[in-house]
């Protein structure tokens, strides 16, 4: 996330005093490059546009679910293997809200439909934030700095969380249908663009902007970035980094909850094992992005989303390996990921 600081132009006087590293454009340029390369391979521009929008939407959702994890890892050096379970909790809370408000979600009014979606998001984020707070307090706090135990304990947390979901919502698949007016698609030229994917792109962009703004333009963000760089220094300046830690963990869990709602609506059904399924995807994304980097996570998510859709169209059987192929290729090129975090 330190690389993203350079995207914002500083006032000229300061820029002279502190020379800034040039922003690394090459990884970001991979995204349009991939899209351009796919155009001749796919042939028809209309299906290309459909796939591109679908890929961007998937990328945005993946970014939202993965951003919390990379943020937590960047600041706290904790890799939460149970992150997926927050996603599952978010999605299941959404199914309850949708189930309770079928009147509004089946109504033929965009306003009511959006209200249900936003209520579901709000509820999911509050619930997962609360769970995240408890999780940090009970499970993660005793194992800071011990990677081996972190992996084991958070994995155990995932097992317990998954079972608790089965206790509350039952072990079977739960449908999560889209509200009426968000179903179907626009015809855009010759291309078919699903409405929900546009919604996902908008929400994803909103989250990205909010995160970049918080991290780069607020004092809180300054402290978080400073904490990533040098924890002791921030502590010695008198800030309580512990509280910051908890805050980031809670925010990361809430983002996972939000992502869970979007992912559940994208798949239109939720199963308790969704956490373990999504884990692989988000790990690939944050490895590609360079562990701990928010912007890298964003670029990685877009690459994964686009590639998954293009390959899924061109060679459906190879779709499952596109992610892993991308990860291997990128790690061979940049072993630390696209935007490596400087101090690691």
């Amino acid at each position: 996330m330190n690389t993203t600081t350079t995207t914002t132009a500083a006032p000229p006087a300061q820029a002279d005093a502190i020379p800034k590293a040039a922003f690394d454009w090459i990884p970001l340029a991979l995204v349009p490059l991939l899209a351009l390369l796919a155009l001749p391979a796919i042939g028809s521009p209309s299906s290309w546009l459909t796939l591109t929008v679908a890929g961007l939407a998937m990328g945005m959702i993946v970014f939202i679910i993965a951003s919390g994890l990379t943020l937590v890892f960047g600041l706290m050096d904790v890799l939460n293997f149970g992150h997926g379970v927050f996603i599952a909790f978010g999605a299941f809370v959404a199914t309850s809200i949708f189930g309770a408000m079928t009147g509004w979600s089946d109504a033929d009014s965009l306003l009511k439909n959006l209200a249900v979606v936003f209520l579901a998001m709000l509820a999911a984020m509050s619930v997962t934030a609360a769970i995240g707070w408890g999780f940090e307090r009970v499970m993660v706090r005793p194992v800071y700095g011990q990677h081996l135990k972190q992996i084991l304990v958070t994995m155990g947390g995932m097992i317990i969380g998954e079972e608790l979901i089965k206790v509350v919502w039952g072990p079977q698949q739960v449908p999560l249908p889209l509200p009426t007016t968000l179903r179907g698609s626009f015809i855009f030229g010759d291309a078919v663009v699903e409405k929900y994917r546009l919604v996902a792109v908008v929400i994803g962009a909103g989250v990205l902007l909010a995160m970049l703004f918080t991290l780069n333009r607020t004092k809180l963000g300054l402290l978080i970035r400073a904490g990533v760089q040098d924890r002791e220094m921030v502590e010695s300046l008198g800030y309580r980094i512990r509280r910051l830690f908890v805050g980031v963990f809670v925010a990361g869990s809430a983002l996972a909850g939000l992502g869970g709602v979007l992912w559940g609506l994208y798949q239109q059904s939720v199963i308790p094992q969704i956490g373990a399924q999504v884990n692989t995807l988000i790990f690939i994304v944050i490895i590609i992005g360079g562990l701990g980097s928010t912007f890298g996570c964003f670029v990685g998510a877009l690459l994964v989303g686009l590639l998954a859709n293009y390959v899924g169209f061109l060679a459906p059987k190879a779709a499952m390996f596109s992610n892993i192929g991308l990860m291997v290729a990128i790690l061979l090129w940049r072993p630390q990921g696209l935007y490596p975090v400087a101090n690691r």
Partner: protein
Amino acid sequence: MLSRLLSHDLPRNRWLAAILIVIVLGLALTPFLFPSTKALNVGAKILVFIVLVASFDLLLGYTGIVSFAHTMFFGIGAYGVAIASTRLGPGWGALALGVGVALVVALVLSLVIGLFSLRVKAIFFAMITLAVASAFLSLASQLSEFTGGEDGLNFKVPEALQPGTQYFEEPFFGASIDGRFLSYYLLFVAAVALVLVMLRIVNSPFGRVLQAIRENDFRAEAIGYRVVVYRTLSNVLSALFATLAGCLLAIWLRYNGPDTSLSFEIMLDILLIVVIGGMGTVYGAVVGSVLFVIAQNYLQDLLKLGASAVEGVPVASQLVSPDRWLLWLGLLFVLSVYHFPTGVVGRLRALRSKGRRP
């Protein structure tokens, strides 16, 4: 003699020794003591899991590496036997070829993964192996003409091991001496031999280097050991033993599919067993596997009793419902990571040393 056989790594606790003797005798006499089909299946599953978990312990407990690709090698072994037996027909030659090819594939794959990614930190390796394993799982279900896809492969084993083959007309001490009986003892002998070999490995100078790397890799490197080489070797060895465990599973079940040998649930089971049984002790794999497989098969019956006691209470009846046994095991897992990081075996051994030094 016994001490030599166990590579001088004796149980070092009276209770542990007693438990191990009961386990070994129980497994050796399962066909006679518990002649039901279910009990025999449980016994065979325990034997397979002992080998599989001990091989994972080589990696996690002795070298301090968390890998999520262990079921991949387990699956390679099982698919090796399954594919060879379907293609070539039942026979010892097919079996040997399947095992051999699986071992070679596992060797190459684990070597590549090790050299490619063991230089990085623990967390990185765990994530990369998770990704590789899930890619392999989808590969296995996609190549359906080769692996049978989601349906898996049903195949026949050599005639001598088929359940229909009767060796004696009369049951012998309550056990019918048939191909099933012979298969069980094949598994038993193989499992005992493999565990003894693994004990030999971890108690050799090589095993000591692995432990040194687990405790402090920086210092081990400074002393002059090439840490990457040792980690890769540990990865390869552990993969080979897991492959053999997979072969045993396939021989016993005469079936293999993605869910039987590759699913993520099995990986979680392995992790639970290693931690609850005791990391860094091959005996932990033995005790843990017995506890876990028995819990998996019989704890549900116990929970059924509990569930009928609190029937009608809304949440409690869900919490103790027999399907939620994994919840309690998960809790036990987390608690044991915090409070008994050395598991059942480590705990028992610690008891003894406390008694020694009052």
